[in-house]
């Protein structure tokens, strides 16, 4: 059983929901990554998504775009990120999931990438511009290395396709909760609740919701229908503004909800 499955089994025992924060590697300096990962673990994260900055992030909204630009201006590279994750694993025990667009991986060399992330102790990868139709380019190698490929489904994915996609993975299913890019949204419609319920019904693996989730109220509402949330732009903002206490508060109240 890999680290992601273990983490969800533990949550299940404790009857808790998952909270997976997203952090842009290199925003605020790549050398701070291990410290930030440790902090997120301390604040109660189930797992952490580590974003790799990319020049053309078509799935991302303004907050993560800007964080990516700052990270690239700091000279952040995929190689450097993998190195810092290796260091971080000395103290961080929760699963680390790399979120990267395909081109930095393709440029790195797919085989080398898989070998290096396996060695670094990365538990999973999310590649937002790699639909299952094209995943043969990397999925078999990741499977061999026991690094989970986390797949996405969205409001536009037909239910049969969701069934098919959710049956491919062993980690969790990432459900995109908006028709759109990452970033803050004010409200989600009823459409989302029935959608999440439908996804839960067909998916043999835990279902996490992400994209546009930025308040505790949203989280409380959404986790009635799924196994947890991914929170991106909000966490990126907390770090960028150095609002660590507010972030702890945000994550603590969340924990209390399900304690």
């Amino acid at each position, binding site marked *: 059983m890999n680290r992601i499955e273990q983490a969800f089994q533990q949550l299940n025992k404790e009857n808790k929901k998952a909270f997976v924060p997203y952090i842009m590697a290199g925003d605020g300096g790549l050398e701070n990554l291990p410290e930030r990962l440790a902090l997120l673990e301390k604040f109660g994260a189930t797992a952490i998504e580590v974003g790799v900055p990319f020049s053309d992030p078509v799935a991302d909204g303004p907050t993560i775009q800007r964080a990516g630009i700052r990270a690239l201006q700091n000279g952040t590279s995929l190689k450097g990120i993998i190195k810092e994750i290796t260091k971080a694993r000395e103290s961080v025990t929760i699963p680390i999931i790399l979120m990267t667009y395909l081109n930095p991986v393709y440029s*790195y060399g797919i085989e080398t990438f898989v070998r290096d992330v396996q060695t670094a102790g990365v538990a999973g990868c999310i590649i937002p511009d790699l*639909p299952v139709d094209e995943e043969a380019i990397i999925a078999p190698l990741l499977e061999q290395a026991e690094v989970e490929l986390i797949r996405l*489904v969205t409001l*536009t994915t037909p239910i049969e396709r969701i069934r098919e996609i959710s049956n491919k993975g062993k980690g969790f299913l990432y459900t995109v909760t908006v028709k759109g890019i990452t970033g803050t949204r004010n409200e989600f419609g009823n459409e989302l609740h029935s959608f999440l319920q439908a996804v839960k019904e067909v998916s043999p693996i835990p279902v996490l919701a992400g994209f546009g989730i930025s308040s505790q109220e949203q989280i409380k509402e959404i986790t009635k229908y799924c196994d947890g949330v991914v929170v991106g732009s909000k966490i990126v903002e907390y770090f960028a503004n150095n609002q660590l206490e507010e972030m702890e508060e945000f994550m603590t109240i969340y924990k209390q909800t399900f304690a």
Partner: protein
Amino acid sequence: MSTYTLPNEKGHFGIYGGKFVPETLMKAVTELNEAYNEAKNDPEFQAEIDRLLKEYVGRETPLYFAENLTKHAGGANIYLKREDLNHTGAHKINNAIGQALLAVRMGKRKIVAETGAGQHGVATATVCALLNLDCIIFMGEEDIRRQALNVYRMELLGAKVVSVTSGSATLKDAVNEALRYWVANVDDTHYLLGSVSGPHPFPVIVRDFQSVIGMETKQQFLARNGSLPHAVVACIGGGSNAMGMFYPFIDDEEVKLFGVEAAGHGVDTPFHAASLTKGRPGVLHGALMYVLQNEDGQIQEAHSISAGLDYPGVGPEHSYLKDSGRASYHSITDKEALDAFQLLSKLEGIIPALESSHAVAFAVKLAGQLGAGQNIVVCLSGRGDKDVDAVKSRLKGGSGK
């Protein structure tokens, strides 16, 4: 002789192409593929395209023997395929008409598009005006500055032009924003992509709609000379006019295919847009193709005096044709293109677009190499009215980029 059948059903040209898009768009590109395959075989749909191309666009466009340019070049005969004479002044409308009719057929009445030089934006806005469709155009801030007249044209035609300030604020970033907009509005909006790039089926759709260029050229040349040309030449940004010219000739192996990229300040400087000459395979905007990128896989900014060639990738089919050797790809600098811009104006009374000037510059060189008795057809993809201001400020010592 083998018959060319690419791409395969997954949209792959060898290793290139594919559908590297967020899951949110998968349903849309799948539906588009189904709708296109159905429409392609519908005689009524084809007849409507043909009618608009004839009555509205003014096709067929002439194949013109450029005698003065031929004499100047001192070698092979140079013919110009006059796409500059299309309504809206460039080849872009061939594709815009086809895709807009396809959108209507799919029940989508909102159109989003990107534009670099503004030619595709103007063509799209024009067709949207004709068919009464909502139209939103994303355009880089830098390009808006360089192509102010085209921005006003689009607005006159009823389109909303949105300035893109992210990244290098040029075509690549306009595509990013158009894709983001499409992701958020995919239910009722068609993305009218302007080049042979992007996720499958766009490279096929755009190629097919632009193939009218090569098909007419072939018929016209045969009717005039009783043979096929020895070479065809076209400029390449994303590669739509070139693909439209090349595709009907792919199985005619005696016809050499030449693509001309923008070398900007020179391919050995950081300031060029020569993706096939200096890039390497990568994934951008939904397709695997040659891309200008740094050693970490970050996409680099492209540079060219011509906004329409200012793109750091090149369509997957061109990437395949380069590797297979069926087409060869060369580059022309800003300065050479400017010289050709003036040369064609003076010798033939035809002011070419700066994009097309790259093809003209290369054809003049090629004519000398091939020698007398050989025949070259250049795709004159657009007219140069839109570039006159920029060229003037550049040549009169202004600071125009």
